[in-house]
């Protein structure tokens, strides 16, 4: 067993787990935070996306022990002060889901993606990788969100929801 300590949605947690336990299993099985979903369990679908110190990762491929001391945010922690996160509101308004299984991962991923874009990062569809002030077009959103699959095919709504939030003054 190894001791891991991390902040999860602002709450300090400490637990003893075997070193082969994934961050996904710690969240779902040990802490009861079942909003984060297990899809493929091999880093291919993005359903398990959470934020670590504000950066999106696949919790299924993360050994929990490697994230000791870090600040984890799951879908349960994205809303502030009782109000939904603007992306949660936009996903509802713009039909960004059908069955909802990928939605937690989509929203956590989109939060991370908007932060990356805000920090000036380029993507594989950016014409000039050295450019600054890259516009967040539909093509850019699709590329930057390609790590999150939606088997219902709600992509049009997902892209619209993210674009709405990206374009609204914050």
């Amino acid at each position, binding site marked *: 067993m190894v001791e891991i300590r991390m902040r999860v949605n602002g709450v300090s947690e400490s637990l003893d787990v075997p070193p082969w336990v994934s961050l996904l299993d710690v969240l779902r099985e040990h802490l009861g935070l079942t909003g984060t979903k297990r899809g493929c369990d091999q880093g291919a679908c993005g359903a398990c996306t959470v934020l670590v110190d504000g950066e999106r990762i696949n919790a299924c491929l993360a050994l929990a022990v490697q994230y000791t001391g870090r600040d984890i945010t799951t879908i349960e922690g994205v809303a502030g002060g009782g109000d939904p996160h603007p992306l949660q509101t936009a996903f509802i308004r713009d039909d960004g889901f059908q069955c909802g299984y990928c939605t937690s991962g989509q929203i956590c991923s989109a939060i991370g993606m908007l932060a990356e874009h805000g920090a000036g990062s380029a993507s*594989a569809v950016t014409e000039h990788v050295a450019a600054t002030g890259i516009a967040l077009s539909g093509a850019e959103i699709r590329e930057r969100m390609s790590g999150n699959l939606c088997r219902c095919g709600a992509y049009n709504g997902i892209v619209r929801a993210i674009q709405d939030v990206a374009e609204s003054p914050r």
Partner: protein
Amino acid sequence: MRPFAYVSAPDVATAVRAIGTEPGAKFIGGGTNLVDLMREGVERPGTVIDITALPLTGVEELPGGGVRIGALVRNAHLAAHRLIRNRYPLLSQAILTGASAQLRNMATAGGNLLQRTRCPYFYDGAAACNKREPGSGCDAMDGFNRNHGVLGVSDSCIATHPSDMCVALAALDAIVEVESVRGVRRVPMAEFHRLPGDTPHLETTLAADELVTAVELPALPVAATSRYRKVRDRASYAFALVSVAAALEVDDGTVTAVRLALGGVAAKPWRAYEAERILLGAPATEESFRRAAAAELAPATGRPQNAFKIELARRTLVETLRQLLTEGSAA
């Protein structure tokens, strides 16, 4: 997942000592490939040595204009780094075409070098695979081999190296710095990965107890005019069928400097030396590009499902060079 012991190394000296004393131990960085392979039972380390606390996270400019990249720099941070975007745009592009944003936030530069093939028979414990189980045969030869190699392949193995980043590093003549209890070695990228021959389980020239500590990019003016072009079965988040890393400098219609490497076609990032040799000093025309691409792919051999890659590689080489000539750099 098979149980293992876990150790976190506080410094490089401790890490390389630990790997020497624990037979079958593995270093873990981002874990994006190793954790997956451990879950599938392909990798079975008794001890996992966590190296993510090591101070190998810097991207630094070297005197003379090169760049030193710590082995633990995350792929996303490397692609976003100003020095890389401006001076080596093909490297930023290559990294950004690989995996997904989530995986790029986890994966490290050192781990990217050591990625293992995504051949489905390598992953499938019930299949024959000379790489996973030497001497067991190769089910890819007459199986699903659309994604497999056409250059440098052998009768034992036709698997490809999956990395995009490494294709750019090969074009750039990067140096891989490795460390063990015996000291530090600097391995040119061209000598880091191996072709399969009859020992496809030996994928690199790294000893089992060596740790990748850094990657150094030489100062290379031609790299400022460069691109990475990747062709795949879907527009994003897929491994390359064929990819091309290219840098081109043209003066008065003549090629004065050129770097070319291919991905998705071999067990290592394939530096296109023959194409470079033909292009250097030649007129920068589509005719030259075609001649160079044809010569580079002349030794290629395909299987029924992947022979299309030979023509695809030729055309992608030509198109990437044409794009560099007419549209310029990806920077």
